[in-house]
């Protein structure tokens, strides 16, 4: 049962890396934020996966159920999701400001404009 | 009798208080200079109170405070440091007198800054002299480097800044890169950094490591100007003459050689080092520096540069003397610190006076100047004689002791070096004296000086000049007289120096 046993984690890893790639390789500032979100959501998937107990149910106490999935990762991820959204909101606000100041949201273009500032 | 717990911090604090007062009186030059002279005078008086107890065998020590756990900032009085402190504090008086004439005669700017940092430098030099352990020594050594920087860069011109940068660069580099490492090494090996008679390293370090450690110390103390780390001295020639006097005679280079001697005597211990063959290279390096610097001096036309290379060569005498590792030569080393101080300060004062009075900076311009400035050039001659090491000057005394030690230990390399360099000394000093007194004054006007020296203002017409301002002449006469007087009264300092080796 080795292979299916780890399959979930692998999916999470692949997704993480897709997000990570978007963050570091893409030049568009909004898309970077999207990448960041994908990256984070994948980490959440990873957390939830480890909380799952085979045959368990959602951790809501009820008569007659013996096996529950682990509630702690759920709690952590609830927090993390909110933190992630906060970060996203802030990042997007920054993007709006950058757009105001530089009239572009492409990284290479802001870099060029910054170099001009430097030369002044 | 005042207690040591008072005197030792006091000789450190006095010039510092002086510096503050000088700064405060910056608006009134006369008051400012009075403060300078008063501070210098009382400092010397205070230091002399230490002579008797030290001669009586007391080695007072005062712990200021604990800086790092187990490592205190502490002061003590011992013969070698006392000789240095006496020399430095006495020459500060003379230099102050001279500076007043020079700085005013030369219309220097930023005079207050000059006097303030001069006083701080003296503080640092005294601190080096009475440091009770390596850490304290290092602290004041670095303070000395930093506080002399504004003095060297005094003019603020590009050339001055370049010179000062080299000055700071070399001194900082060597001290942080080598000296600092050496101190920590010593600390790790022995668990202490206290200067202890007989040394602390015996039995703790052995074999080639001793040579390496000695190298770290000898080169780390860049102020001793051991080749190849001597470049800062000529570079610092851009400074005003009183600063050169400070560097060459009063504080800086003396602090360097003093530290080297102190490390050899109190950290390594003469006997220990004599038994370790890996330390033997120092004689060679010192000898090489003596000869090479003399040869370079021979080719310099700029008077101050010639004096600078002469200093480099003379400093290595002290190191050579210590490296011979004979008790008698160590006494010679201590003596030579004082002897060279008096001789060299006279020469620099003379060079500065010539410049103030006639705006001449090159040796080749000095023909016949002795007739216009008899006192100055007379003093110059006396200083030169002391440098060469002829009686009746104190230079003879110290050289005699060093030779004595070299013979006693059969160190023929050292002996050869001393003989050769004496000839070279004569070769680069005597022509100056000869030209000044016996060559006719040149009639043609000189063009701009070829050296491009800042201080040569390119006066195209020889103007009629006499002696430089009275304070300057007074100062250089005193120091010239000092070299002679010390020859006849050498017993007193010698007695002090002999305590060093317990002899």
């Amino acid at each position: 049962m080795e292979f299916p046993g780890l399959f979930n984690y692998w999916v999470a890893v692949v997704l993480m890396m897709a997000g990570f790639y978007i963050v570091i390789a893409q030049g568009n500032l909004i898309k970077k934020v999207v990448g960041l979100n994908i990256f984070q959501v994948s980490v959440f998937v990873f957390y939830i996966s480890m909380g799952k107990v085979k045959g368990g149910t959602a951790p809501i106490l009820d008569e007659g159920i013996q096996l529950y999935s682990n509630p702690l990762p759920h709690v952590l991820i609830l927090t993390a999701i909110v933190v992630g959204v906060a970060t996203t909101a802030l990042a997007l606000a920054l993007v709006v400001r950058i757009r105001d100041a530089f009239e572009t949201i492409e990284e290479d273009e802001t870099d060029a404009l910054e170099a001009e500032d430097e030369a002044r | 009798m005042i207690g040591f717990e008072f005197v030792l911090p006091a000789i450190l604090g006095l010039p510092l208080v002086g510096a503050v007062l000088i700064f405060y009186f910056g608006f009134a030059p006369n008051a400012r200079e009075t403060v300078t002279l008063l501070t210098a005078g009382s400092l010397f008086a205070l230091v002399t109170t230490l002579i008797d107890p030290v001669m009586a065998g007391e080695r007072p020590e005062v712990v200021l405070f604990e800086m790092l756990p187990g490592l205190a900032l502490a002061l003590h009085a011992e013969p070698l440091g006392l000789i240095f402190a006496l020399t430095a504090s006495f020459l500060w008086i003379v230099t102050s007198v001279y500076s007043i004439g020079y700085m005013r005669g030369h219309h220097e700017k930023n005079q207050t800054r000059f006097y303030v940092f001069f006083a701080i430098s003296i503080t640092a030099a005294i601190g080096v002299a009475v440091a009770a352990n390596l850490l304290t020594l290092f602290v004041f050594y670095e303070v000395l480097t930093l506080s002399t920087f504004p003095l060297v860069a005094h003019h603020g011109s590009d050339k001055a800044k370049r010179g000062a940068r080299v000055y700071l660069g070399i001194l900082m580099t060597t001290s942080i890169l080598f000296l600092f490492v050496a101190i920590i090494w010593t600390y790790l090996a022995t668990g202490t950094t206290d200067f202890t008679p007989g040394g602390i390293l015996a039995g703790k370090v052995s074999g080639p490591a001793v040579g390496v450690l000695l190298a770290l110390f000898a080169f780390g103390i860049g102020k001793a100007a051991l080749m190849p780390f001597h470049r800062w001295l000529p570079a610092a020639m851009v400074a005003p003459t009183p600063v050169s006097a400070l560097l060459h005679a009063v504080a800086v280079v003396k602090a360097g050689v003093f530290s080297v001697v102190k490390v050899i005597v109190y950290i390594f211990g003469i006997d220990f080092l004599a038994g370790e063959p890996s330390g033997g290279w120092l004689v060679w390096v010192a000898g090489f520096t003596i000869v090479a610097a003399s040869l370079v001096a021979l080719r310099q036309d700029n008077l101050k540069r010639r004096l600078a290379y002469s200093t480099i060569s003379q400093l290595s005498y002290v190191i050579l003397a210590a490296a011979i590792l004979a008790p008698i030569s160590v006494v010679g080393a201590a003596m030579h610190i004082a002897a060279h101080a008096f001789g060299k300060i006279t020469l620099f004062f003379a060079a500065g006076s010539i410049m103030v009075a006639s705006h001449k900076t090159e040796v080749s311009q000095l023909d016949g100047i002795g007739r216009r400035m008899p006192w100055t050039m007379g003093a110059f001659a006396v200083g030169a004689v002391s440098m060469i090491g002829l009686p009746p000057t104190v230079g003879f005394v110290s050289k005699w002791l060093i030779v004595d030690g070299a013979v006693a230990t059969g160190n023929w390399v050292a002996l050869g070096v001393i003989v050769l360099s004496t000839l070279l000394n004569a070769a680069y000093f005597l022509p100056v004296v000869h030209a000044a007194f016996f060559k006719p004054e040149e009639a043609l006007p000189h063009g701009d000086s070829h050296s491009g020296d800042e201080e040569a203002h390119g006066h195209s017409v020889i103007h009629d000049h006499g002696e430089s301002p009275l304070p300057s002449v007074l100062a250089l006469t005193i120091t010239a007289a000092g070299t002679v007087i010390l020859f006849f009264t050498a017993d007193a300092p010698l007695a002090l120096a002999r305590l060093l080796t317990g002899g």
Partner: protein
Amino acid sequence: MAVTAFGLIRIRNLFAVAMLFGVFSLVAALLYVIMDAVDVAFTEAAVGAGITTVLMLGTLALTSSVEKTHGPRNLLAMAVVLVTGAGLIYGTLDMPAYGDPDAPIHRHVADRYIGKSGAEVGPPNVVTSVLASYRGYDTLGEVTVIFTAAVGVLILLGRGRGRHTRRRPEDEPELWRGDERRLRDHRETEL
């Protein structure tokens, strides 16, 4: 899910990107339900798919909606990503198998939560108990994060207008988020 993720890398129209991201979030939420994390699924659906998408669309309205040019394929980035990914896969090799009830994760702290929270805290939903009580402090921190972000957005975008109502810290986080959105909506209408 992976398809949507890789689609995101290629697509240049940022509107499509935002929508696709919403889809991505929803799929993730579905996954959570499958893995018994109903609370998380709700939040993800509401926050990830809902609010984030709205935020992105809002931003797009303020900026440009088409990504301009792609630089050359970034090999360095690819290398970094591959190394990191390989490291992670390597790390998973020693992990307990998925769903294994005997994994240490389920044996230590979690036991107590499940076993005693009903008695110690009250609510049958263990997640709620842990969130509100055992790790209540994390939740306070989370609220602070939201507050920080809200004030941050306000500083960055509120152009000199201090018009926003005060919220009390004991309010539910959901309300806060709503407030934030109101704020943003307000800004959008102004523009």
